[in-house]
């Protein structure tokens, strides 16, 4: 799957642009890392790549077709392959199992084997019946990451996925993302470079003041 941003501009208030003339192509598979300081526009960029936000100006081309020019049905069928993990995880009322399995249930899937494997591996199996209200910041992030990984999407976009995670979980996540990048497109935004990610990244980008530059 290929997602291409052509001369993308974005403004929340119609006055100040958060993104300015961004041109980038995320193609096929691989691990793409977008770095940039807080407030540089990473979250906005990732939400545009994930087809959640519509750019103020410019085009988002998915597999050769302008996404926002398509009808609702065609948009849904494209978006089902793209999963985004929020910087601030959105966790709903209910227990951890409800939240962690939400993505699969929304898609009508009853195949929970991989999800159960992830839950076990990331060490959250003992939390499954706990209230989502009692989770720490790190646990909330893990839940949102596992929920996304379980969907095995063709495009996975993660916003600051390493915040609040301990070093062993960071290593585990980098391994999973690297392995996933062999068959899918993985885009990660982070404000600091995680050492483990350095060797695995296919491409590095830097976002400064709304402008994106490829680093290598």
């Amino acid at each position, binding site marked *: 799957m290929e997602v291409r941003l052509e001369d993308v501009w974005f403004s929340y208030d119609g006055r100040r642009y958060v993104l300015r003339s961004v041109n980038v192509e995320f193609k096929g598979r691989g691990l793409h890392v977008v770095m940039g300081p807080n407030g540089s526009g990473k979250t906005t960029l990732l939400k545009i790549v994930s087809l959640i936000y519509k750019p103020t100006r410019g085009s988002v081309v998915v597999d050769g077709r302008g996404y926002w020019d398509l009808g609702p049905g065609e948009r849904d069928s494209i978006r*089902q392959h*793209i999963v*985004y993990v929020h910087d601030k995880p959105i966790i*709903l*009322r209910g227990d951890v199992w409800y939240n962690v399995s939400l993505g699969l249930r*929304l*898609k009508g899937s009853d195949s929970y084997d991989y999800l159960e494997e992830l839950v076990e591996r990331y060490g959250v199996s003992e939390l499954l019946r706990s209230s989502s209200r009692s989770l720490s910041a790190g646990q909330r992030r893990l839940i949102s990451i596992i*929920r996304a990984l379980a969907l095995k999407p063709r495009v996975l976009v993660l916003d600051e996925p390493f915040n609040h995670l301990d070093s062993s979980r960071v290593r585990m996540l980098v391994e999973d993302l690297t392995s996933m990048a062999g068959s899918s497109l993985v885009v990660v935004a982070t404000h600091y470079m995680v050492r483990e990610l350095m060797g695995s990244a296919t491409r590095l980008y830097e976002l400064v003041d709304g402008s994106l530059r490829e680093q290598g």
Partner: protein
Amino acid sequence: MLDVVVRSIYISLAATLIAFTLGALISLLMLATPRRLSGLLVGVFDALVGVPTVVVGLVVYMLIHPGGPLGFLKLLYTPTALVVSQSLVALPIVVTLLYRYFEQLWGDVRELVLSLGAPVGKAYLLMLRESPPALIAVYLIAFSRAIGALGAVMVVGGGIEGLTNVMTTAIALEVQVGNYEYALTLGGVLVVLTVGLSLVARAVGGLVWR
């Protein structure tokens, strides 16, 4: 005394039900309107929350008194007039609380559904699942507001014994004739009821995350 308490409760329950239903519809419609307009409307309803209940009663009185535009309905000094007045007293707080709740919830749920690659229609189902504790809490808060609306019910109900006399009007009338013990007892019941409901509303509101 029991008949006054029971009458107060059922009139306030009916009034709250009307205010809640209308308020839910208005707040959902506001969600669908452009942001600038909904911001203006929520500001208007915010301001209406602070309007003295006696003014609400006066407006209803002007509408339903025999010479008023709705005078032919013969509602003045009937329990129905009390229900209408209390509904109008409770409506603004229902709208402001529900609008803010729905706005926040819809933003989160919509983004979550989209981020998981699901059709946005699924967000409505999640909204329904998430809402009950908050809806119950708002209903109880509105009930507390309705049952304590003395001015509105005094103007349109008149506190007629056996017909429109509710706790607030009974307290006011009994104080005037020096029956302090009766007034204090009713006052105690009213305080227990409103404070108790506030505590229940708070506890139910806390369930939003459980």
